[in-house]
C-alpha cells in the first residue's frame, strides 16, 4: 500500500496532466485559427472576391466563380435536405412506431458516420455517370446527403424536448394532429431545428471530398447547373498542392473566408441554442 503522501502526489500530478491535456486541445485550436486567419487576410483584396482566376503567371485574379459555386451548391443542398430531414424528424419524434424509429435512427446515424468521400463516389455513380457530366446538381446532392441525417436527428431531438402538455393542449382545441404538429410543435422546437441546420450548413460548406468528382471545379463561370462548377474548398485543395507560390497565397485567402464563414455560423448557432434553453 503506497503511503498517503505518495497517493496525494500521484493524484495531483495526474490532475495537472488532465488539465494540461484540456489546455493543449484548446491551444491547438487557437494556434490553428489565428495562423490561418492572419496568414489568409494578408492575401485578401477586392479582386480576389470579384474576378475570375487568371492564367498561371499573370498576377492577380480571384475566385468569384468559386464563391458563387459554393453558395449555390450549399444553398441547393440545404434546401432539399432540410425539407426532407424536417419531415423525417417529425416522423421519428411524433408518428413512428418504436421499432421503425429504432431502424431509421440507426440508419441515419450510420449514414452520418460514413466518410464523405464515399458519399462523393455514390453521387458520381448515381448522377454524374448517367447524366454524362460533372455538375452543381451532383455536388448539391452529395452535400445534401451529408446534411440529411444530421438535420433529421436534430429535428427529432428538438421535437422530443417539447413538453407533452403542449400536444394535449393543441389537440384539446380540436385541431387535427398534423396541424398541431406544424403550427404548435414545430414553432416551439424552431430554435433547436435552426441550430441543427446551421451547424450542418457549416459542416457541408467545408466539405471537399464529396465535390471532387461531382462538381469537379472550373476555372470559369459554369454553364448552368448541369456543368462543372467551382467551389472554394476545391480551389483550396488544388491550389495548395500545386507548386506555385501565387496559388498558395490564393489558397490561404480562400481558407480565410471559408474559416470565417464556418466559425461565424457555429457561434451564431450556439447563441441561438443558448437563447432557446434559458429554462
Amino acid at each position, binding site marked *: 500500500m503506497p503511503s498517503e503522501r505518495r497517493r496525494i502526489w500521484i493524484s495531483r500530478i495526474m*490532475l495537472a496532466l488532465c488539465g494540461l491535456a484540456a489546455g493543449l486541445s484548446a491551444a*491547438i485550436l487557437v494556434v490553428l485559427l489565428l495562423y490561418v486567419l492572419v496568414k489568409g487576410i494578408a492575401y485578401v483584396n477586392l479582386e480576389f472576391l470579384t474576378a475570375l482566376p487568371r492564367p498561371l503567371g499573370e498576377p492577380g485574379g480571384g475566385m468569384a466563380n468559386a464563391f458563387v459555386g459554393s453558395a449555390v451548391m450549399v444553398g441547393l443542398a440545404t434546401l432539399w435536405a432540410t425539407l426532407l430531414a424536417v419531415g423525417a424528424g417529425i416522423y421519428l419524434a411524433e408518428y413512428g412506431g418504436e421499432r421503425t424509429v429504432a431502424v431509421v435512427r440507426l440508419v441515419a446515424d*450510420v449514414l452520418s458516420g460514413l466518410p*464523405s468521400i464515399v458519399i462523393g463516389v455514390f453521387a458520381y455513380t448515381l448522377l454524374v455517370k448517367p447524366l454524362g457530366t460533372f455538375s452543381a446538381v451532383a455536388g448539391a446532392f452529395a452535400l445534401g446527403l451529408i446534411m440529411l441525417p444530421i438535420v433529421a436527428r436534430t429535428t427529432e431531438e428538438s421535437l422530443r424536448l417539447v413538453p407533452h402538455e403542449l400536444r394535449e393542449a393543441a389537440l384539446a382545441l380540436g385541431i*387535427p394532429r398534423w396541424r398541431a404538429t406544424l403550427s404548435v410543435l414545430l414553432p416551439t422546437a424552431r430554435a433547436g431545428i435552426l441550430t441543427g441546420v446551421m451547424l450542418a450548413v457549416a459542416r457541408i460548406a467545408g466539405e471537399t471530398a464529396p465535390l*471532387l468528382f461531382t462538381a469537379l471545379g472550373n476555372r470559369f463561370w459554369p454553364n448552368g447547373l448541369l456543368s462543372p462548377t467551382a467551389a472554394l474548398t476545391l480551389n483550396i485543395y488544388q491550389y495548395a498542392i500545386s507548386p506555385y507560390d501565387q496559388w498558395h497565397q490564393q489558397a490561404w485567402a480562400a481558407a480565410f473566408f471559408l474559416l470565417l464563414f464556418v466559425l461565424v455560423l457555429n457561434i451564431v448557432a450556439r447563441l441561438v441554442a443558448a437563447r432557446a434553453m434559458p429554462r
Partner: protein
Amino acid sequence: MAASDYPAQVATAAAPARLRAGPRLLDGDRLFHALVGLLAASIVAFAALLAVYLVKDALPAFERFGAAFLWQQTWNPVTLQFGALPAIYGTAVTSLLAMLLAVPVGVGAAIYLAEFAPPWVERPLSFLIELLAAIPSVVIGLWGLFVLVPALRPIEQWLGQRLGWLPLFSGPPIGIGVFAAGLVLAIMVLPILTAIVREVLWAVPTHQREAAYALGATPWEMVTTAVLPYGRSGIVGAVILALGRALGETLAVTMVIGNAYRIDPSLFAQATTLASKIASEFREADSAVFLAALIYLALVLFAITLVVNVVARLLVLRLSVRAIGHGQQGGG
C-alpha cells in the same frame, strides 16, 4: 403548399362525419402521416441505394480480382493490375497512430472538464474544443502542409540520425508521410472524442463519486475506481466513433501523406490511405476497370466504417439507456 391548406378544411369539416363513417380517404392526418413516413423512409432508401450502387459499379473490378484484391499490393493502371493492401495498411496505421496520440489527451481533457474544472474554465474550454471540430478538413490540410510538415522535418531528421537503425525511424525524413498524417488525424478526432467522453462522464451519478471519496480515495483514485469503470462502455464507444472518423478522413490526410502506394514499416515513409487514393486518382481513371477498382476501394472503406459505426452506436446507445435509468434514480 396549397395541399396542406386543402385537407385542413376537409378534415375540420369532416370531423363529425368521420366518427360515424370511419376514416376517409382524404384525411389530413393519414396523409400527413404517410408523407412524413415517406420522408423518413427516404433516408433508409438513400442508404440502401448507396450500398447497391457501390456494389454495382465495383462489380467489374470484383469479377476481375475477386477477394484477392484485398491482399494484392500492386496498383498499376497501365497493366490494369490492382490490389488494395497498401491502402488498407496506410489507413490502419495512420488511424492507429491518431488514436494513440488522441485518446490519452482527449480522455484526460474530458476528465478535467467533467470532473475538476470550475464552470468559468469549463465553458470556454469546451467551447474552444468544440470549435476545433468545426474547422474544415481542407483547411487543416492546408495548415498541415505549410506549417506542420516543415516543423516536423528537423524533428524527423534528428530522430533519423540517432535512431535510424530502427525500421520505425528509417526512411526519408521529409516531413510528409505517415507521421504527419497521424498527427493531423489526431487533431481532427480530438474534439469529438473529448466532447463524447465528457458527456459520458457527466452521466456518471454523483453518489459513485461520493462513495469513492467516503472510502478515502484521492481525487485521482476517485476517477480511476469510480468514474472511469462506470463510463467504460461509453468511453470505448467514443473511441470507436472517433476511429470511424479517422478511417474515412480524406482531404487533410491526402495533403500530408505523400501518396506513395507501398507498405513501409517506417513512421516517416510516404504512404496512402483508402480515402486519399480515391481522392487523388478518381478523376484520372481512364478505363472502366481502373474506375471500378477505385469504387471497390470505396466499397472496402464503406464496409469498414459501417462495421465500426454500428459497433460504436450500439455501445453508446447502451450507455445512454443506462444513463437515463440512473439519472431518474438519482433524481428520485
